[in-house]
């Protein structure tokens, strides 16, 4: 809950949460009231995004929701399940697959958040990287994504794996270019596959720089 002073607070009524304007001198203002979906109430919570952005303060959550909606993301204010709650009791639910794009929008808008989590399953992105060497090429595997580069020239030879729609786009924009000359996949991608490709890219770049020295 927000502390005293001006700001937003959450209140429960009729088994639903409401964000309300708060002023410690004037009391609660019901103007601008916003109904929040109670997480787990399937009747109201039809959107299944699978991901939550957690915030320290209610007004941060509401601002982030506006930024993301303006950027055409499907999002919804929800009360996170108790096990995932960190900071305030309001979160933005979104399609976890779009994590890279959501993080980028929030960063550009300077919108603070505590953490981004999937609603269930592992809480952290898979960070196990494997390296396979061919004669003059090196393939770096991160989760479901693989990036292969020429060990002598640093040219990206291929990108394989994954399945999200930004991967063919990243393939076209990165293959045949030197690994030191291209943008990181997370800067142009939108999805979790792009984040896994970014993990492979960072490792590949490090390997290339070490071998070049």
């Amino acid at each position, binding site marked *: 809950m927000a502390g005293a002073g001006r700001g937003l607070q959450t209140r429960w009524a009729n088994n639903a949460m409401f964000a309300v304007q708060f002023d410690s001198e004037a009391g609660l203002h019901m103007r601008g009231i916003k109904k929040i979906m109670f997480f787990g109430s399937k009747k109201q919570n*039809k*959107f*299944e995004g*699978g991901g939550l952005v957690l915030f320290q303060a209610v007004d941060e959550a509401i601002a982030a929701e506006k930024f993301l909606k303006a950027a*055409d993301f*499907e999002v919804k204010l929800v009360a996170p399940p108790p096990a995932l709650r960190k900071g305030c009791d309001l979160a933005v639910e979104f*399609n*976890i*697959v*779009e994590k890279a*794009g959501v993080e980028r929008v929030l960063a550009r808008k300077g919108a603070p958040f505590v953490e981004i989590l*999937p609603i*269930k*399953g*592992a809480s*952290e*992105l*898979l960070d*196990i990287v*494997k390296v*396979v060497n*061919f004669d003059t*090429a090196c*393939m770096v*595997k991160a*989760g*479901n994504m*693989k990036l*292969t580069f*020429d060990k002598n020239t640093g040219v990206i*030879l*291929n*990108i*394989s*794996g*994954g*399945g*999200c*729609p*930004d*991967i*063919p*786009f990243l*393939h*076209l924009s990165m*293959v045949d270019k030197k690994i030191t000359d291209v943008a990181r996949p997370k800067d142009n*991608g*939108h*999805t*979790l*596959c*792009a*984040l*896994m490709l970014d993990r492979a890219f960072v490792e590949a770049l490090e390997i290339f720089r070490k071998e070049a020295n």
Partner: protein
Amino acid sequence: MLLICGTIPQEDAGLLLGEARFDGSKLLVGNTEVPCTQGTAALASAACTVASHCRIPAPHAVFAGDTGSGKGSRLIYDYLSKNLPQIKPDILLMHYILPVMGLMKQVCAAAEKCARKPIMMADASSMYAAKAAGLAGQFDIFTPDLSEMEFLADPDAIHPAYISRHLFRADIAHVDDLIATAFRQKSMAKTVIIKGATDFVVQEGKVKFTLSEPDLPPLEAIGGTGDTISGMVGAFVDAGFTHLDAAVAALKANREAGKYAQATPATRISQIIAAMPKILNHN
């Protein structure tokens, strides 16, 4: 009719509908040329090649431009949800489409409304959406690679990027455990074709076929070598093959095409596809 649905990396392409035609180098949907890249374009090119070989009608396409924003993907979901019962495809093959669980449920509901439910195939992100939404049992064929098989075996993961660490090993030594676990959790389609150093065809939780030769490690590095398998399976099924026979034929053709193309880590998927007619004609 085989209906192939997926995105292409052209943000402003909108929705492309029509017969897919491939002349050996160019893929056309209607009158629009689609670059033969990794992803759904590679899948469709391989499917066209098999359709031509089997002398069956070319597949139809529902493509949309999408570079990751999801706008094109939503056009596809919307089109399928509204039109599937009228299109009446024999096989619905869903591919690179941003996973949105609620929209995938709508497409599956539309498929149920068809006079005869299509054979349901999913690969790539469409497979992620089907599993995450608890719809795996409604699908006839999935085509995961090994890391995606680990995703299917993880009861809670909604994307391969969030597989539990204890499941992620990316080696085939524990594939039997993955199959048993995923089958027990009802995360498997009726036929699952696992693509990797060793390929597996699994039906109702049991391994029916494996293939390791010719052994071509560079194929794993080449973007699109899994897509071509999925496209060929769809076309072989459309030609009347059983799902098992279609899987076997596609897996063999893919490896042999890689061998014929003398695949290296730098080989392009278009070079593998270009070798397919020769391989199909000799088998």
